[in-house]
């Protein structure tokens, strides 16, 4: 593209309609929805982090007295639920929203209003889940909610009701987004953007959507059974009636293990974008990276029972699930090696994004190896329910997913805002977070191997756990410092950061060919794609890294971009209806809480009212055309 070389700063040909609260409530622009996802999920990251910090404060010394046992149960349940469903998934969704259309050369997603709906459902669902804190019964059954602990007999208060209804609501958001992104990627690729030319992030996002649409229905049904048991007195998890407590575990982990890959594959995709750019080399073994992603996802559906070795499924089942689990290490290992080979012999630039990305490669390997240790049933029987497992999944989720997502934030922040994040603050963010994560989670391997069980709120001195717990808690201090600096950076740079230009990094993919932030129509011309790294084909591949950044300064006179109207590009109209549908749906689910309080008639009335409102808004939405006639 001719404009790429000069990369001028520009102003939007904006109008009143483009700013203000109303524009955010009615937006159907994938980039703004991405920004909403980003902001909301980072907020919940702080909340989830606060919950974790209190947990670590309680466990810092033997016989901690910071919180009660009940509070501790609520804290670890909500920490897990928040970090998985309210942070890592929606933070990934922020990148799906921003990047999928930009990377495939599209002007929006396939269903812009459905996209807005997904976000609002996520927002209202997350609020509903956390309202439980204020009524004094936050979920307390663990993020996995094992029955019969979560059945009415053992959990009489509202805690579990908030959890199961909240998850049900959030599931709708993920499923709607899944159908939307699958359609977008299948059907909206620019001419020449063949599947095997798609940027690797879009590939991983594509695979993740299949995991979402196939895994979420299973937990939906598991939760429906739980709801029916708790609300209507059915017998699905009633042992006295012949119900099998393992039914929940099977259904939950058939969802739960693919969920693990839903959490990590987007981060893998981001890292696969960051490493080539800052190594100035194409990704090593692109097709193998794609196939290994598919293989991870495929095998991910066949390993769920490795979460259940301790329940005694018998040697055959244990062996089969042990072997399939170990098999997943092969495609994952292939990815690790390909990332290393991408960097090998490259011109490395250690930007903050690159540091986070390399850290994922290094630390995920640790988590991956401890994962293979659990894959062996005899070893797992020793490790089940100890802090060793906690160490394992925090190495893959914090040192893996979160590092990758932070790499993505540093790398794509210019595309979101038009400005770069401060690299010096970024470096502080990175190093403090890096030290904190390792100091927190590495000692957990040892406290776990010394026998410290998970989910205990208090422990006696003299069992050899003191030092490790103290180290873990000190580590959290470093993480907090790092995150505070990072968030200060995110907040400050949106106004005062260096102006980025189209392509501050010398990156190869389509999203960097257009202004930052992109105009609402993204591409004035639909690009024609002839290779995997279109921008590196235009620019000389051996040029100095990012030459255009030196000439950029905020003082440069802004250039006005043409509007969609001037270009004759039809744009979807803003709409408030997705927000209403999402709101009424959330209220409809929330009304079911009244059943627990034996106010069945009230619940019925409320459900009917909100269902009617929901249907009316839905018809209003579906019968209003997306765009004006043209």
């Amino acid at each position: 593209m001719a404009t790429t070389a000069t990369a001028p700063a520009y102003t939007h040909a904006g109008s009143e309609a483009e700013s203000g609260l109303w524009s955010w409530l009615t937006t159907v622009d994938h980039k703004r929805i991405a920004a909403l996802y980003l902001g909301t999920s980072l907020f919940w990251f702080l909340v989830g982090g606060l919950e974790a910090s209190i947990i670590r404060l309680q466990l810092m010394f033997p016989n901690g007295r910071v919180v009660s046992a009940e509070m501790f149960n609520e804290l670890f349940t909500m920490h897990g639920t928040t970090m998985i469903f309210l942070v890592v998934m929606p933070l990934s969704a922020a990148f799906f929203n921003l990047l999928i259309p930009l990377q495939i050369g599209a002007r929006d997603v396939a269903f812009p209003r459905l996209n807005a709906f997904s976000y609002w459902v996520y927002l209202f669902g997350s609020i509903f889940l956390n309202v439980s804190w204020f009524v004094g019964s936050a979920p307390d059954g663990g993020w996995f909610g094992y029955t019969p602990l979560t059945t009415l007999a053992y959990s009489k208060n509202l805690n579990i009701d908030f959890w199961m209804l909240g998850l049900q609501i959030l599931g709708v958001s993920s499923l709607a987004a899944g159908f939307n992104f699958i359609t977008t990627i299948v059907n909206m690729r620019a001419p020449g953007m063949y599947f095997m030319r798609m940027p690797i992030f879009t590939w991983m996002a594509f695979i993740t959507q299949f995991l979402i649409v196939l895994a979420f229905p299973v937990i939906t049904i598991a939760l429906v059974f739980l709801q029916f048991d708790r609300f209507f007195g059915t017998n699905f998890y009633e042992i006295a009636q012949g119900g099998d407590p393992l039914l929940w575990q099977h259904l939950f982990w058939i969802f739960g293990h693919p969920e693990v890959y839903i959490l990590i594959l987007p981060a893998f995709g981001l890292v696969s974008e960051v490493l080539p750019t800052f190594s100035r080399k194409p990704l090593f073994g692109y097709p193998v990276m794609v196939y290994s992603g598919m293989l991870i996802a495929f095998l991910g559906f066949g390993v769920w029972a490795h979460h259940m070795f301790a329940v005694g499924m018998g040697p055959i089942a244990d062996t089969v699930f042990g072997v399939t689990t170990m098999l997943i290490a092969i495609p994952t290992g292939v990815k690790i090696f390909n990332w290393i080979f991408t960097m090998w012999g490259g011109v490395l630039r250690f930007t903050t994004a690159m540091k986070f990305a390399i850290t994922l490669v290094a630390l995920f390997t640790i988590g991956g190896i401890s994962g293979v240790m659990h894959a062996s049933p005899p070893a797992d029987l020793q490790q089940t329910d100890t802090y060793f497992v906690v160490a394992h999944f925090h190495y893959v989720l914090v040192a893996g997913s979160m590092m990758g997502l932070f790499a993505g934030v540093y790398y794509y922040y210019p595309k979101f805002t038009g400005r770069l994040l401060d690299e010096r603050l970024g470096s502080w963010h990175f190093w403090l977070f890096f030290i904190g994560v390792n100091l927190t989670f590495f000692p957990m391997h040892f406290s776990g191997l010394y026998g410290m069980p998970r989910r205990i709120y208090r422990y006696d001195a003299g069992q050899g756990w003191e030092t490790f717990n103290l180290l873990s808690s000190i580590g959290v201090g470093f993480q907090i410092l790092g995150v505070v600096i990072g968030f200060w950076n995110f907040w400050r740079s949106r106004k005062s950061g260096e102006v980025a230009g189209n392509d501050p990094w010398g990156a190869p993919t389509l999203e960097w060919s257009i202004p930052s932030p992109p105009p609402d129509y993204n591409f004035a011309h639909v690009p024609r794609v002839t290779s995997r790294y279109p921008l590196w084909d235009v620019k000389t591949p051996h040029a100095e890294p990012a030459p255009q950044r030196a000439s950029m300064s905020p003082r440069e006179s802004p250039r006005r971009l043409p509007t969609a109207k001037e270009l004759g590009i039809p744009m979807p109209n803003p709409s408030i209806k997705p927000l209403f549908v999402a709101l009424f749906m959330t209220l409809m689910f929330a009304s079911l809480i009244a059943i627990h309080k034996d106010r069945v008639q009230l619940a019925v009335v409320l459900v009917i009212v909100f269902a009617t409102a929901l249907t009316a808004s839905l018809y209003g939405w579906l019968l209003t055309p997306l765009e004006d006639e043209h």
Partner: protein
Amino acid sequence: MSSTTAAIHAGHPPTTTGLDHRKIAIWAFIGSECMLFASLISTYLIYKGRSRTGPFPHEWWCQATNATSATGPIANCPAGALYKPILNIPVTSQSTFVLLMSSLAMVLALAAVENKGKKGWAGPGWGGRLMESSKLWLLATAILGAGFLCYQAFEFTSFVHEGLTIKTNLFGSSFFTLTGFHGAHVTAGVLWLLTLLAIDMKRGLGPRDALLVDISALYWHFVDVVWIAIFTLVYLIR
């Protein structure tokens, strides 16, 4: 990007596959729904024969002695303690037939919409004119779907009268949940068809709207296929 001078595209660029977005999305949705019903059906099959007490789907049950019999009424069971097998295959065969016929009507509705405006495509005479009426076939599909729901309502009430509720035992819980979810899907489908019918009455559906009917037909046939699986696995196989 070799071509930097492409003309500005007014309007929308064509889709990659040439298909409408909604067609791709409905298939993704159906894939997801498969997992939903797979979970429900699996649960039913896992719990089959594991209820501690009756009534049972295919066996007679005596509440007083907890005895069961697959062949006929249990002798010397006190009056009022004997429960019939719950599932009534002849009645459900009729409702299955009704639902299958609704799929046929759906196919005819889609054909009528796709060919609207082509004179005499369905042959001569009143028979041809009947075939050409999209309103008739949309209405027929909706009525047959509603007929299936009436059968289901009858079935549910009679089961409750025979002593089986959703709370009674594992069979009751898993049976009513599975078939109830299917019934909810049929209900959504009937509402969808009636909406299409309303649009057809208001402004007429023609070949340009064929996609609207096409995706509803995909959904409808899917719900139908799920019923065939349920009818076979729940009712016919003992």
